[in-house]
């Protein structure tokens, strides 16, 4: 499955994926991955079921290999693959291969629409969750959390009496996500919602004022835990310690069949803990020393050499951590509020 084995055409899945994300900033990674795969499918004249599946598998592998943090997008690719498998390999009387292919190729936009609609549905739940006098803590960067808060703010304006405040945890790094946060904050402030911004180091300090926390997720994993931007885990722990509800806001297409047993089992490489001496980073064979468990995970999942194609994530703002399910009060999806325990069943259902 090496890169060189080549896709038939010049189609570059990674570029497509990046382009899609760049073109539409509302797009989530799983959906972008699905879109990219569909484009790949459209660009490639695969005519049999097995060829198609092969192609999708290849493209997926490429994508996962090249994108440093593949957790979120793999939710999309997995979903797509599973959809194809379940539909194409069935002894079909009606679900004819061409039909499905056409359906997919023609309806790329539809999926994007659905994803956005899902987000809107979730946002609509905001007003149920946010009550008068609440102080909401969020770590930003998540579009869906942003829209949830905005919708709550709007409904609060309509209802008049509901006032809430927001504490936004922002990281000092200037990144795209922070721009997102900035936009959200501005939008909220415009709607007369008071927003405080704090560095992630101040969460423990102010957790006693907080009534509930909302965080986004890159992926919701098998056991109901989440993989999310670095710092989410500690917010979860602090919220738990203070007895505050900790809600994850995520579209259900971010559910991913991954089961991390700890932070180092995410299947991606992150150089967050970087030991250094005056001679520089202790890195040569250091990665194994520093995060022993990680290597196996990477090897198993990706089948790729460690420091080759795929650069390890070292910038803290790109890094993710894993928040275990016992810290999560509920996962707000477009289909309602799920307990973490319900995630597994959902994933089981699409796989079997």
């Amino acid at each position, binding site marked *: 499955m090496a890169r060189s084995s080549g896709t038939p055409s010049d189609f570059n899945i990674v570029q497509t994926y990046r382009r899609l994300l760049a073109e539409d900033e509302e797009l989530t990674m799983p959906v972008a991955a699905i879109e990219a795969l569909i484009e790949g499918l459209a660009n490639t004249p695969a005519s049999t079921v097995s060829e198609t599946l092969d192609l999708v598998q290849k493209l997926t592998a490429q994508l996962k290999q090249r994108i440093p943090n593949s957790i979120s997008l793999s939710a999309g690719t997995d*979903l797509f693959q*599973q959809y194809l498998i379940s539909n194409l390999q*069935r002894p079909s009387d009606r679900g004819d291969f061409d039909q499905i292919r056409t359906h997919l190729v023609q309806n790329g936009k539809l999926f994007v629409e*659905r994803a956005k609609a899902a987000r809107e*549905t979730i946002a609509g739940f905001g007003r149920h969750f946010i009550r008068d006098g609440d102080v909401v803590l969020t770590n930003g960067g998540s579009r869906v959390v942003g829209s949830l808060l905005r919708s709550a703010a709007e409904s609060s304006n309509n209802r008049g009496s509901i006032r809430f405040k927001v504490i936004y945890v922002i990281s000092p790094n200037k990144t795209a996500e922070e721009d997102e946060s900035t936009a959200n904050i501005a939008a909220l402030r415009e709607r007369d919602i008071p927003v405080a911004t704090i560095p992630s180091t101040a969460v423990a300090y102010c957790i006693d004022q907080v009534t509930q926390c909302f965080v986004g997720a890159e992926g919701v994993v098998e056991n109901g835990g989440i993989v999310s931007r670095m710092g989410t885990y500690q917010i979860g722990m602090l919220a738990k310690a203070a007895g505050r509800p900790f809600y994850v806001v995520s579209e259900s297409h971010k559910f991913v069949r991954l089961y991390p047993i700890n932070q180092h089992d995410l299947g991606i490489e992150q150089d967050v803990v970087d030991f250094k001496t005056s001679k520089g980073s202790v890195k040569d064979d250091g990665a194994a020393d520093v995060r022993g468990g990680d290597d196996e995970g990477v090897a198993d999942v990706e089948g790729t050499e460690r420091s080759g194609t795929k650069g390890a994530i070292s910038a803290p703002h790109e890094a993710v951590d894993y928040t275990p399910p016992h810290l999560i009060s*509920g996962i707000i999806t477009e*289909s309602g509020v799920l307990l973490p325990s319900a995630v597994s069943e959902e*994933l089981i*259902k699409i796989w079997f």
Partner: protein
Amino acid sequence: MPAATVGQTPSLTTFLKSLKTSSVESSIELLASLLKRRQIKNSRQCALATAQLLRRVVGAERIKDPQKLIDRIRDVGRRLVAAQPREMAVGNIVRRVLGVVREVVEEQLGDDGSGSSGPSTPTSPTSRAPKRPMISHTFSSFTPLSHGAAMPYDMHPRPGTPGSSSPSGVDRLADATAAARRPGLATSASYASIAPTNASLLSFLEHPLGRSPGATPPATSSPRMTPVQSSMELNKEKIDIKAEVIDGIKDLLDELEVVDSQIAESALDHIHSNETILTHTSSQTVQKFLATAARKRKFTVIHAEAYPNDHEATHATILNGGKKSTGDDDEVDDRWKPLTALGITVIMIPDTAVFALMSRINKVILAPHTVLANGSLLAAAGASTIALAAQAHRVPVVVLSGVYKLSPVYPFDTQELIEYGDPGKVVPFEEGEFMDKVDVVNPVYDWVDAELVSLYVTNLGGCAPSFLYRIVADHYRMEDVDLGAKSG
């Protein structure tokens, strides 16, 4: 007792009597006002009254269009719920009756569709049938998945309890036959708790609107009722829908009747010799549970009295068992002997002593007022102190709850669910100055977080709080969760 100017104190018994004679509309009014004035309260009585009323409503309806029936029930449900939003059992029963109707309708459709007009099995909401009418699946390419989804449904609804199965064997049979008859039709079980939606993650990639309105993307927030309606117009009155629905309601009533005995069946699994059990307030379910265990084992019960709202009932329960002194409720409430008569040592304590004694207690047994979809519960005030103290001492908390207390409502705001009672129970009104100047607050219920509960024992068996979402999904139709929503 406010406004009890009727010759007889209004109660469940009087309501049930009047139900036989008065008109449907006045019965609805009566129940709504009884609920409003708390003359019928506690989950069981509310559930019974609602089920009986709905039986009457369905009986009086001339059913041409099942959708009309559904609308009618929803409407009645809305009125009852509005009268007393905190008695969740009312809404639960309404939803389950709606489920019965939908099921009957779908079954008929199913029979129709598959051409096999099998004997119409009496159904109850416990038997799960397709969420969506079959039509939505004729094209949908998800049948294999649906097969898969049907599997957990068959296994899950009664987690590991062959002993205490569904209320009647018929239901299980209905289950089995329903599944067997139309294997391809059983859809994936949906799980969500507040919004109508599709179930499977794959629906994301599903075919667009096409022929199946039922498979619309989850974003649509209107309940999917059109399929029922439109399809029903095609085949009217094949089976006697009314009789079927009434049968279903009867099953529901049967379930309410046997629910305590079913829960009590597992008593010996939970109570062992020489244990010290702590319980709280007066609950028929708990008393029966303990009494069942008492037949075989000797243990000690420590009973907190739940002052100031329920202590009198608690005392009565401890002293006299289940015989109500008024003699009024005998028809509805079974009689049972007090535990002391069974040789069980009962130690009555004020609620304050709960923490002090918790270190010597082996198990806490609670009866909730309502169980919410996320596994948390509402119970008589004092329950949260007990549950917290139990957690502090690592004592397991077992909650006994009939499925009818299980509400699909997600507790967005637990504060809102808590009812405040008569402050006169705390401070007698004679103490005018005190009442005037001091704000006397008397919460009737406590909200107990799911993480404080070790185990739920329902009439379907035991389950962890984390699994309740599934039982909720098994009993309520997504489209009925929000009774207030305008039907499509």
